[in-house]
């Protein structure tokens, strides 16, 4: 019975992240439009877009390989699994120990690896430029993320997200290293999700685009999978920041329905707050030149390294 309950909770978690991801995207678009004094599309528009995309036929280039056709599913699966492993409303779910934060980072890396590969599959210059720049950003964002993981893990004594969240709930205190890690994680999250100032999710036909350049050749259901994966990735980073730095309201796995309901409600509140802050940041800043991005990400890497160094020097930082 307990096993069934655990598995059911795990299933709820997986479905929850999948169902909420387009909503978060729609919410950020709506808020952004309102901040720009536009009316903006309805909040549910991403769901409609996805439905429309999967009903359409897929047009693929003549020289597309099997990798091009299977890539979107792999990208989606890796991102979804990574997102489902992050405690959203409850800690200590059955499979939460299958992968720690390092593995989650690497899973996102797997998704990016395939995304860059499918970008190069058709052999167009846009695909190449997108893949090349994405990997350049990643080459700084990923070590920054690992240093953030180090900082957090040295504070909490574990790389397992459930343990980290529980530790933060029980022994939370203001620490210099955690502050550095939070700033670094926000920078990484902005870069990884191709948001302003690193990339512009709303643009096309600009030499500055990165993510959109890689997926330019996709249409129909394949594009739907990639768009959904991008939405899940945004949700993933917001959940990650919420889980590590703002774990209040998280229920324990064996808690009663009331605690779980509180967990879900606070999670929703955190998502919308995170989305709102992200959009607020985006509207107040201009997009960077592509070769300024390494400096931006370098800051994240240095902050992460500084946090880790401080903790190596003394555990009390």
């Amino acid at each position, binding site marked *: 019975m307990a096993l069934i309950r655990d598995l059911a909770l795990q299933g709820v978690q997986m479905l929850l992240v999948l169902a909420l991801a387009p909503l978060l995207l729609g919410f950020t678009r709506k808020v952004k439009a309102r901040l720009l004094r536009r009316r903006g599309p309805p909040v549910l528009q991403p769901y409609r877009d996805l439905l429309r995309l999967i009903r359409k036929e897929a047009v693929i280039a003549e020289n597309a390989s099997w990798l091009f056709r299977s890539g979107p599913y792999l990208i989606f699966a890796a991102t979804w699994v990574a997102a489902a492993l992050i405690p959203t409303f409850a800690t200590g779910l059955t499979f939460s*120990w299958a992968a720690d934060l390092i593995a989650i980072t690497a899973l996102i890396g797997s998704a990016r690896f395939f995304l860059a*590969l499918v970008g190069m599959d058709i052999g167009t210059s846009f695909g190449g430029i997108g893949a090349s720049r994405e990997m*350049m950003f990643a080459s700084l964002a990923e070590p920054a993320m690992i240093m953030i993981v180090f900082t957090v893990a040295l504070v909490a004594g574990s790389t397992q997200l459930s343990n980290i969240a529980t530790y933060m709930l029980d022994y939370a205190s203001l620490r210099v290293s955690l502050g550095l890690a939070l700033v670094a994680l926000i920078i990484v999250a902005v870069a990884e999700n191709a948001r302003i100032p690193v990339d512009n999710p709303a643009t096309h036909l600009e030499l500055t685009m990165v993510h959109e350049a890689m997926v330019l050749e996709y249409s129909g259901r394949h594009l739907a999978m990639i768009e959904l994966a991008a939405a899940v990735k945004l949700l993933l980073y917001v959940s990650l920041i919420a889980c590590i730095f703002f774990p209040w309201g998280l229920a324990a796995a064996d808690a009663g329905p009331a605690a779980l309901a509180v967990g879900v409600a606070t999670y929703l509140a955190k998502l919308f707050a995170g989305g709102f802050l992200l959009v607020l940041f985006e509207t107040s800043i201009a997009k960077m030149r592509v070769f300024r991005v390494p400096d931006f990400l370098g800051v994240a890497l240095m902050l992460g390294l500084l946090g880790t160094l401080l903790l190596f020097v003394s555990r009390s930082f």
Partner: protein
Amino acid sequence: MPVAVALWGVVALFAAAVLAVTIHRTRLAGPLVYLISLAVCLANMGVAGMQLLHASATAPALHLPVGLPWIGAHFRMDALSAFFLLVTNLGGAGASLFAIGYGAHEKAPGRVLPFYPVFLGAMNLVVLADDAFSFLVAWEFMSLSSWALVMAHHHDPDNRNAAFIYIVMASFGTLTLLLAFGLLAGGAGGYAFADIRSAGQTWPGLVLVLVLIGTGSKAGLVPLHVWLPLAHPAAPSHVSALMSGVMTKVAVYGFVRIVFDLVGQPAWWWSMLVIALAGITCVLGVLSALMQHDLKRLLAYHTVENIGIIFIGLGLALAFSAHGMRAPAALALTAALFHVFNHCIFKSLLFFGAGAVLVATGQRDMEHLGGLIHRMPVTAFAFLTGCIAISALPPLNGFVSEWLTFQAILLSPALPSWGLKIIVPAVGAMLALSAALAAACFVKAFGVTFLGRPRTPVAAHAHEVDRASLAAMLAFAVICLLAGILPGLFIDALAPVTQGLVGAHMPVQAALPWLSIVPIADSRSSYNGLLVLIFIALATLLAVEAIHRFASRAVRRGPAWDCGYPDANPATQYTADSFAQPIRRVFGEVVFKASERVDMPTPGDRRPARLTVILRDLVWEAFYAPISASVTAASERLNRLQFLTIRQYLSLVFAALVTLLLAVSLWP
């Protein structure tokens, strides 16, 4: 008994070499020699595996009355030897299987066939040797036979140059090892490893430095790596796989054997030296790899990077065991040894893939390839598996060993030494950086070679390679997956090795629920490759099923979109150099002093515009160029001695005689 079986295998390999010399002109020679090698490797692999899994308290040993009369030849197979014997012969078996098909394309089999089994046999002997003399003789056999294999295609001046640099570095490495063993044996001159262990060491610090130079130069540790990216690609591809996948591991074995086993308690500063060098090796290796467009040279530079990862693990193990922290030392050492195994598998696999591409197209330069996934689907699949594994992405094996290394780094704040407290986090960042750059590099390698449109007619008309080569690649791809999803079994198999070297082993992983792995007993971190794979597979299946059930299944093929302006010329694709350009801009100015020169013709001028990129090899300029220049200058000076008159020679001889007599008479 196991040692005798393994030694008979070596004898069979040497016999195969003799056979190859006599019959290399016949068509059957290649398959026959490689089949014998394959059989011997499989047999020795079995022996080593049995020995590793059923480790007895006393390691089987054998003493043969050959070699130096007062030493004889000692051989012994303890857990460490058994593990490296397993790795050596696994790599050797794969390379031999691959070569059954690949070797048929060899233009001068007489230059490859006799040396190949000798090379394999010598590597077997190195890991079995139990006295300094046999070790060094086997080591030198290994160097010389691989040098001969590098020289196999000696008509190319680049290969001759590579072989020359290799033989110089190899001789230098053997010299330092010779000196190290001399110091270890001490005045008593007990050259058997058992005598060295029981004797007290003089100057163990100097021994460490000498061993680091000797084995590091063979393994490719910066700044001793310069020969490696030249020599490894120059050899035929199955030999490249052996050199990169196996010979560097034999060098790692030499380091582990001497530093962890023969020398006593490590001093605190040893690990700092090793870790710092290893971190630099990682980053420099992968950045150099990113700048390459020769597929095999790119892979060779990645060997440098992976050797860095292995040495980070070894350095951490040294640091922990110097401070008496046994469980973390076992973790770090297991991480390093598991990466030894993993790197052997995926680097061999990637070199096989590069060899297959070379057979199919005659090209190693990625700028002339492209679109091979359509023409060589199986090779592409296997190569992709290797790319994912080497980029340390889950659920394959490369990730597991890096995960273990990261976990070892996370345990190191407990180290009391202040130097380590500063160096270890920095090296952790370097490790993370090199993992991310490796992913970028293999997106480039796979994307430019196998994806996109063919850039030349040879790439457009490539054909899939033969079955033996494909079988070798697929087998190694399967091992990559197995080691990635069932790492616990491999870690448990390493327990007797770490128990013997640092006096502890990682917690028994097979006892954990769901085949997870944990780094140390009271750790609260875990990873489960099997579950991750199942999750990804289920999520993919679910997505495919849902999409195909509820959505449109219609597919239409059309011309590429490319924002409405597709260009039919394949030269408009991103090339290997253009892919790496952003990364070159970020890191290149510091690491390579990269500069670009643009030659733009004025309007009306019809010559083509040119962009030249200049990368400088700072390691070569700092360490090797001065040595090379001074050697040249000295030999210019000495050259005058060749043109003296007979009178001058006689007076020189006389002067030398008088000087020597004086020296003898004045000697106290």
